[in-house]
């Protein structure tokens, strides 16, 4: 069955539920056979940060599957991008995680989970920019420039490298 965005739902986690449900959520995901250890380590750290209020986690679930069909998450935090001595307001995409079984290469879906998570981040950032000054959405692709597939995915979502020597990418919002 082909998927569309309407098949998925996004649920923002409170800091308390990040503490309570951390192990259940982290253990419910499947991980890359080689990079799984580091993926899990970053995920555990992200939940610890979310409990402290340093980042906000939103889960994405596939509504067509059973109740616990979490297929990924995104973590967003408040930050800034310093350009010529000015700290310009930005939202940082701290982490994008997609369940291994739901990743592009393992899925027949017509829209990727990572794509939907990015759409979510962009939409939320644009909403925030209506009431709070916000100029950029920024991220650092996992694995850096060598992860060409991931980089070209972000480029398709209009993110651009800040410089040739830095690993960070930006999307200008306003």
């Amino acid at each position, binding site marked *: 069955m082909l998927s569309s965005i309407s098949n998925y739902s996004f649920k923002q986690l409170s800091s308390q539920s990040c503490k309570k449900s951390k192990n259940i959520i982290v253990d419910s995901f499947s991980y890359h056979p080689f990079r799984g250890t580091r993926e899990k380590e970053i995920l555990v750290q992200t939940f610890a940060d979310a409990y402290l209020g340093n980042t906000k986690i939103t889960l994405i679930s596939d509504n067509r599957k059973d109740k616990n069909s979490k297929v990924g998450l995104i973590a967003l935090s408040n930050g800034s991008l*310093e350009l010529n001595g000015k700290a310009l307001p930005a939202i*940082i995409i701290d982490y994008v995680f997609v369940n291994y079984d739901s990743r592009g290469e393992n899925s027949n879906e017509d829209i990727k989970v990572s794509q939907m998570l990015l759409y979510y981040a962009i939409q939320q950032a644009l909403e925030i920019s209506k009431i709070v000054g916000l100029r950029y959405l920024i991220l650092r692709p996992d694995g850096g420039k060598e992860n060409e597939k991931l980089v070209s995915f972000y480029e398709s979502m209009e993110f651009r490298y800040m410089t040739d020597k830095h690993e960070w990418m930006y999307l200008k919002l306003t």
Partner: protein
Amino acid sequence: MVYVYNEKNQKIQLVKVPTLKGEDANRIENAQVPKSFLNSVLKMKLNIVSA
């Protein structure tokens, strides 16, 4: 709070957003906003449920 995996000591570490000056900073500050893309994303109906 972005983390990367340090292959040498096999630990995750926090990375900071770079500070940019000069041409690099000007280029980012003067970059075009991809308006049509952002508008298309805004129109998407995402099913966001409250926690």
